[in-house]
C-alpha cells in the first residue's frame, strides 16, 4: 500500500510499504477513508519530538471502514464505518477504567523511553514517534488499530465524513481543554491558537456554559473563522498588546479560563520570540512557551489555565510565581479520546457543532508532502488538509 513516511526533518515521502496485518487478538484493520494533518505533526516535521525513525508512517486523526477484525474484537464487524481516536487505550488498566485513557499503562510497547523522560509512561499514540509506542500512522491506505473495541467508534448515520474525521482528535482535544477549565456559567474563556483544536475548544466552551469566548491568533483567516463559526471575539497578537487588551475587555478583572491550544512552538512578537527561538535551537529549552507564559499572566486570580498544546520537555522562564501567588489551577494532558468521542459524535449528529468547516483542502495521499508544506506555511487560508487515500 501507499503511505506517507517521515524521513528526517521536513522530509516526508510517499512510499510503498507492506499492508498491515492483525498482530494481536484485539486488533482491527481499517481502510482509511480520511486522514487529517494536525498541528502536533509539525513538531515531528521540525524535529522537536525525538525518537522518530526514518520510514515511520505518520498521521493520527482518521476514520475509515473496518475490513478485518481479530478474534478478540467483539463490538466491530467488517464494513463498519468508524472514527478512531488518536490515542490508544487498553481498556483494562486502572487509568482506562477511570476514563483517563491517554494515561493508559499498557498501550505503549516501549514504556522505558517515557519512563526515563517523565518518570512514568503514558499511552501509545498513532504515528507519533517511538517514545509514544512507534505505532504506524494513518496517512496510509490501511492501518492496524490495536484495542479496536476501545478506540474505534461507529459513526452515526447522517454524520458526514467531513465532520466525523475531526471527532478523532481535534474535537475531543478541544472539548477536553474546555472541560478541564471547569467553566462556570457566564465565564470568559480565552483560547490561544485558532487552528483546528482551538476552534473546537471555542465551540466546546459555549457548549459548557461560557458567557464569552475570545480567540487569539495572528492569521486573519483563522480569526475570521473563529468569529464566523465559533462566535468568538478576536484579538490579533501582532496588532495589540494581549495582556492589556484582555484586562480592559474584562473590566480589569481578567479572563476566568485560559486555554493554550498552541504548545511548544508558540510564536510571539519582539525580543521574546528571538530569545525562545535561539534557546530552542540550541536545545537549551525544548519548547517556546510564549503562549503559556501569556496565559498565566493574563488569567484572573483564582482562574484556570488549561493546556492541550503539546509540550515535550523543558521550558525556560516559566512564571511560577504568578501561577502560585494568583492561586491558579493548571490542568493539562493528552486528550482522553475514548471518554469524549461517543458524546461528541452525538453532539455532531444532533447538529450542536459542525466541525466540517475546518476542512479547507481535500487531497490524495500522493500530494501529502505538499499538503503538509501548505499546512505548515499556512498558505491559501489553509486550516486543515485531509488526505483521502
Amino acid at each position, binding site marked *: *500500500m501507499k*503511505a506517507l*513516511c517521515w*524521513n528526517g526533518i521536513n522530509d516526508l*515521502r510517499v*512510499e510503498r*510499504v*507492506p*499492508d*498491515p*496485518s492483525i*498482530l*494481536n*487478538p*484485539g486488533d482491527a484493520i481499517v481502510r482509511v477513508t480520511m486522514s487529517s494533518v494536525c498541528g502536533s505533526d509539525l513538531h515531528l516535521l521540525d524535529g522537536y519530538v525525538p525518537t522518530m*525513525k*526514518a*520510514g*515511520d*508512517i505518520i498521521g493520527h486523526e482518521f476514520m475509515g471502514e473496518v475490513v478485518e477484525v481479530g478474534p*478478540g474484537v467483539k463490538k466491530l464487524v467488517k464494513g463498519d464505518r468508524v472514527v478512531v481516536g488518536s490515542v490508544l487505550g*487498553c*481498556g*483494562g*488498566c*486502572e487509568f482506562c*477504567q477511570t476514563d483517563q485513557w491517554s494515561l493508559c*499503562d*499498557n*498501550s*505503549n*510497547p516501549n*514504556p*522505558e523511553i517515557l*519512563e526515563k523522560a517523565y518518570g512514568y509512561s503514558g499511552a*501509545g499514540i498513532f504515528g507519533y514517534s517511538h517514545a509514544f*509506542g*512507534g*505505532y*504506524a500512522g494513518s496517512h*496510509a491506505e490501511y492501518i*492496524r488499530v*490495536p*484495542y479496536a473495541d476501545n478506540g474505534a467508534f461507529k459513526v452515526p448515520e447522517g454524520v458526514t465524513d467531513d465532520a466525523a474525521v475531526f471527532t478523532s482528535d481535534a474535537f475531543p482535544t478541544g472539548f477536553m481543554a474546555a472541560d478541564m477549565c471547569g467553566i462556570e456559567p457566564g465565564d470568559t474563556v480565552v483560547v490561544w491558537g485558532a487552528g483546528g483544536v482551538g476552534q473546537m475548544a471555542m465551540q466546546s466552551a459555549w457548549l459548557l456554559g461560557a458567557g464569552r469566548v475570545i480567540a487569539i491568533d495572528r492569521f486573519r483567516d483563522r480569526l475570521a473563522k473563529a468569529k464566523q463559526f465559533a462566535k468568538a471575539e478576536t484579538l490579533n497578537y501582532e496588532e495589540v498588546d494581549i495582556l492589556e487588551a484582555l484586562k480592559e475587555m474584562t473590566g480589569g478583572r481578567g479572563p476566568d479560563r485560559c486555554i493554550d491550544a498552541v504548545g511548544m512552538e508558540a510564536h510571539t512578537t519582539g525580543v521574546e520570540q528571538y530569545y525562545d527561538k535561539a534557546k530552542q535551537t540550541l536545545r537549551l529549552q525544548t519548547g517556546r512557551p510564549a503562549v503559556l507564559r501569556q496565559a498565566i499572566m493574563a488569567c484572573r486570580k483564582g482562574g484556570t489555565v488549561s493546556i492541550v498544546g503539546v509540550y515535550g520537555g523543558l521550558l525556560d522562564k516559566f512564571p511560577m510565581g504568578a501561577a502560585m501567588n494568583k492561586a491558579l489551577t493548571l490542568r493539562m494532558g493528552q486528550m482522553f479520546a475514548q471518554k469524549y468521542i461517543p458524546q461528541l459524535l452525538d453532539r455532531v449528529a444532533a447538529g450542536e457543532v459542525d466541525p466540517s468547516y475546518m476542512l479547507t483542502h481535500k487531497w490524495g495521499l500522493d500530494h501529502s508532502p505538499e499538503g503538509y508544506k501548505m499546512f505548515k506555511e499556512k498558505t491559501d487560508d489553509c486550516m486543515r488538509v485531509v488526505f483521502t487515500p
Partner: protein
Amino acid sequence: MDTYKSKMSDVLDTQHILPPATGSSHMNVGTTERIASVVGGALMAYYGLRKPNFGGLILAAAGGALLYRGSTGYCPMNSMVGRDTADEQDISIDITRSLTINRPRSEVYQFWRQLENLPQFMQHLQDVRQQGPKRSHWVARIPKGVGTVEWDADVVQEETDTLIAWRSLPGSDVDNAGEVRFMDAPAERGTVVQATISYRPPAGAVGGQLAKLLNPAFEQMVKNDLHRFKQLMETGEVTTTEGQPAGAR
C-alpha cells in the same frame, strides 16, 4: 544504582534467595594468574590468528581458552582437580521491580505459579517445563541469536497467593534465583507484584566490570518483562508493534 548503599530488596524487606555459586560465577583463579592468563592468552590468540593454517588455529583456540580463564577467573581444569587460587568473594546481582496489576491477587498468583506461562511475557525465555511439583526445566535464548542456555530450578518456597521463590540447581549454565511477592494494592487497585530476580555474573574484578556493563540491560529486561506480564494480565495480550509496516529504514 551502585552509588546507593541500600539495595531495593532491603528497602522492600524482601528476602534474598541467593543463587548457588557454581560454574563460571565461582572464581578459582587468583589475580596474578588471571593477569598472566589474559596477557598470555591474548598473545597466543593474536599470533595464532595471523597464521593461516591448522597450527595457528589451535594456538588461537588455546589463547582463547586462557583469555576466558583470565577474564572470568574460573578455570574448569582447576575445578576438576580441586585447585583454588582465588581469595575473592562471589557476587550476586539482584534486581527488584514492582508493578501494580489491576487484577485480583489469586488470579495474578495462579498465572505466575504456572511456570510454563512465564515465556509468554519473559522475552528471553524460550521454554519452561514443569517436571514435578517443585522441579522445572528452563531454556533461555541468549540475545542476538547466539544460542540457548538451560538449567533446572526448584521452587524453594511457596505460599498460595502470596509468594513464590525458586533457585537454579548447582551446576547450571547461569546461576540464578527469583522471588515474587503478591500483595493487595490499596483501595482495591488490584495486586502489587514485587519481583526480585538475581543471578551471579562471572566472578571477580573482571566479572564485576562485566556485570556493571550488563546490569542496566538486565535491569531493563526485568522491567520490560514485568510490563509485559501486566499487559497480559490486564488485557489478555502483549502490546506490540512488531510486524507492522514502515517505509524504507
